[in-house]
């Protein structure tokens, strides 16, 4: 067990704690940290950062829960597509989404920032909550209804308590994503609305003001830890065991008032498709009407050979890098979740601390981590600083907490007596895992895999820093194209977005089609 715990914690120590500590220490040696902390502007940044993150989280929750209901409880045709399509926002480079929101909401300001952040994160809520919801036995709800409880009452006293762990998990992840949201805030907030994240970026990358960046990084860290601890306290003892069921048993055709919820869910999906649709339209629009020039150019290497790799090659590169990151993150995330569940029966404080630590990479600026790598990783054999291997490693750092948040609530919900019964009947620990945990939590593993893929596919920051030109991924190609003049470059950028969406939907639908032992199979 100690060995198993050492794997994710060791990874976290080497690829997160060490680089971040080193860059913050370097900032402190420069002096002037105190002056930044004493500045009133700094505290305005903290307030705005947390405020916009909380608002975005709320919007994502409100929009995501009806979609979760649709995915988990409704046996309707087309749900598979919805399940995949809502993940598309996640892979789109923030610069193109920012531009789309800018043109849809020209005078946006804070509202545009909140909506754009929520746009990226509805899928986190919908899929995390649906992962648990689809396994929750619905007979308790049916019993409550039979005993005369209203739909609302049934939802608030039966369904909601059962879903709390997943909702808490999703809220924590979304909050961290929104608190560190960079491109959207930069593009939609401009000079008026700045966050800790955009300010850390400017100070580190453009000004090399490391003391200022260190002060802000410490504040970011403190804010994130405070938010995580608050979340952990809120969901303490809520993650209780219950009887989990296979999705096939719990999903059915909606009846009566459920159709209203389904309608809301479809409305949310339709709203998600508006910015997405505007990107597709742009890929087809030319000065003189409509055309496929962008797609034709993307199939080759662009206008006058302006791309080093064709769009197809970039798509293949994307899938390759994402595969590595996904496998690594699944390994780390599932091992960490199992350790947390196993330890959780005895030592809850230790588990909470470890759980919080594993979430931190989501809440700390990618720039802080990236510049930390520059001054630390050369001490490791093979100088990883400029190695292509760092791309999946950096992506796994972000993806692992997501895997944990999707898998852990489900594993914790499994009644431990099932495992004990299996062990009593002579099953080895491995066999218990295979016969009890995997069948019951299988869907959440798949959901986590799909998510990991999507985050890795869309990752831009670390990849654009580290990837070699001949192995450029689609988001990197889009970033290049959108920063060039000329109609064709623009069409190609949006055609590449469309390609990225198609690849994403294809991969997610493929992963969702796998049936790693859902309960219905035995």
């Amino acid at each position, binding site marked *: 067990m100690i060995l198993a715990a050492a794997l994710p914690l060791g990874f976290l120590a080497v690829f997160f704690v060490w680089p971040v500590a080193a860059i913050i220490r370097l900032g402190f040696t420069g002096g002037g940290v105190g002056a930044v902390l004493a500045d009133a502007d700094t505290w305005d940044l903290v307030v705005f950062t947390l405020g916009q993150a909380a608002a975005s989280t709320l919007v994502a929750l409100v929009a995501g829960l009806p979609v979760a209901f649709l995915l988990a409880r409704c046996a309707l045709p087309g749900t598979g597509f919805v399940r995949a399509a809502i993940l598309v926002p996640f892979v789109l480079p923030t*610069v193109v989404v*920012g*531009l789309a929101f*800018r*043109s849809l909401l020209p005078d946006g300001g804070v509202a545009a920032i909140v909506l754009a952040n929520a746009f990226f994160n509805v899928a986190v809520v919908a899929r995390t909550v649906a992962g648990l919801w689809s396994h929750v036995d619905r007979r308790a709800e049916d019993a409550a209804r039979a005993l005369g409880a209203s739909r609302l009452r049934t939802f608030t006293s039966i369904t909601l308590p059962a879903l709390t762990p997943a909702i808490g998990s999703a809220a924590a992840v979304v909050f961290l994503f929104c608190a560190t949201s960079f491109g959207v805030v*930069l*593009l939609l*907030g*401009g*000079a*008026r609305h700045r966050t800790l994240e955009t300010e850390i970026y*400017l100070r*580190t*990358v*453009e*000004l*090399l003001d490391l003391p200022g960046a260190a002060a802000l990084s410490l504040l970011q860290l403190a804010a994130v830890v405070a938010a995580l601890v608050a979340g952990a306290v809120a969901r303490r003892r809520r993650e209780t065991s219950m009887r989990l069921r296979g999705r096939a048993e719990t999903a059915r055709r909606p009846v009566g008032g459920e159709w209203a919820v389904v309608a809301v869910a479809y409305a949310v999906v339709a709203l998600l498709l508006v910015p997405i649709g505007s990107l597709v339209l742009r890929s087809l*629009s*030319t*000065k*003189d009407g409509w055309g496929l020039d962008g797609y034709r150019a993307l199939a080759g290497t662009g206008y*006058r*050979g*302006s*791309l*080093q790799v064709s769009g197809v090659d970039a798509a293949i590169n994307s*899938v*390759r890098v994402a*595969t*590595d990151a996904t*496998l690594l993150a699944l390994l780390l995330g599932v091992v960490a979740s199992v350790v947390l569940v196993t330890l959780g029966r005895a030592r809850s404080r230790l588990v909470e601390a470890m759980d919080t630590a594993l979430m931190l990479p989501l809440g700390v600026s990618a720039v802080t981590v990236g*510049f930390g790598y*520059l001054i630390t990783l*050369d001490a490791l054999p093979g100088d990883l*600083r*400029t190695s*292509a291997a760092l*791309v*999946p490693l950096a992506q796994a750092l972000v993806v692992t907490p997501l895997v944990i948040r999707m898998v852990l609530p489900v594993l914790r919900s499994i009644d431990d007596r099932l495992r004990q019964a299996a062990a009593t009947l002579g099953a080895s620990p491995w066999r218990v895992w295979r016969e009890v945990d995997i069948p019951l939590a299988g869907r959440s593993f798949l959901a986590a895999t799909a998510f990991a893929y999507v985050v890795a596919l869309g990752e831009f920051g670390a990849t*654009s*820093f*580290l*990837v*070699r*030109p*001949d*192995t450029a991924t689609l988001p990197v190609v889009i*970033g*290049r194209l*959108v*920063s*060039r*003049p*000329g*109609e064709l*470059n*623009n069409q190609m950028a949006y055609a590449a977005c469309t390609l990225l969406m198609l690849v994403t939907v294809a991969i997610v639908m493929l992963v969702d089609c*796998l049936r*790693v*032992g859902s309960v219905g199979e035995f």
Partner: protein
Amino acid sequence: MRRIVSLVAVALAISGCSVGGSGEQPGGRSVVLVTHDSFEVDPALLERFRADTGVRIDVRKSGDAGALTNQLVLTKANPIGDVAFGVDTTFASRALDEGVFAEYRSPEAAKGPQRYAVDDTGRVTAVDVGDVCVNVDTAALAARNLPVPAAYEDLADPRYKDLLVVEDPATSSPGLAFVLGTVARFGEPGWVGYWERLKANGVKVVSGWEEAYTQEFSGSSGKGPRPIVVSYASSPSAEVGADGLPRTAAVLGTCFRQVEYAGVLAGAKNPDDARKVLDFLLSEPFQAQVPDKMYVYPAREGVALPEAWRKAAPLPENPAVLPAGDIQANRERWVEQWRAAVPR
């Protein structure tokens, strides 16, 4: 059992997709070229260089020019490459002050690049010129019965009210270059007064070039509302219509000279081959392809520009310039002053 078999099959299929599954490049001498995101080169040229010298160029991109410079500064004790390209006028001084580069005077430097030298220490050499200028949508101005503006002062003329869009100098490299151009033109503190006049004249500020040019500017494919934008001298070459005539023009009286430099890194593991790479960046074949690949002008003299460029995007002859040292010393203060004078 069937489940295990299918899992193994999936695992095998996945491992075929992985980066680890693809072969690493073969050994031999190699030079790591650290550069910014905008670097592009014809792969055939890299191949030819390798055939000629036996040296493979390993390109590593590292964000924009600022990110590149600051990474070089942070890693100067143990550099992340052998040669760096892409440190520009705005950041050259920081890199030189920090001792990032080692002296190397390329024999190719005398063929033009020398004109743009930062100082006489021979540590960095100009590779290309990418001036930042105001661009106009000529047809849109004609439709408003307005002449093409000629200089900075015209942009503050009420006739051009609400027509200009610029980038925030704190977050955008062309935005900063344009502000530096106004500092060079009006001096201190006159440039702040000029910006106050621009503000009164309805200048719109956005955070990045992408938004300014592709979304707000009417001369690009985004067909935005504003016919005047801060972009590059080279941008009109990409906006040539089907009739072969340019649809936009750079206002040559509003240009600020941006030069991009390359140099051999101090402490490079392979300095000899790194010098060959620097010579390669200054060579005729590489210089000839920088317009198409990177939308910049060659630093070498006598390299022909592509056809579309000669018509639509000639190199500005008298751009504003500021010494790299002045920029380094004042950049932060100027940006702060700008932010105080021109809030949105």
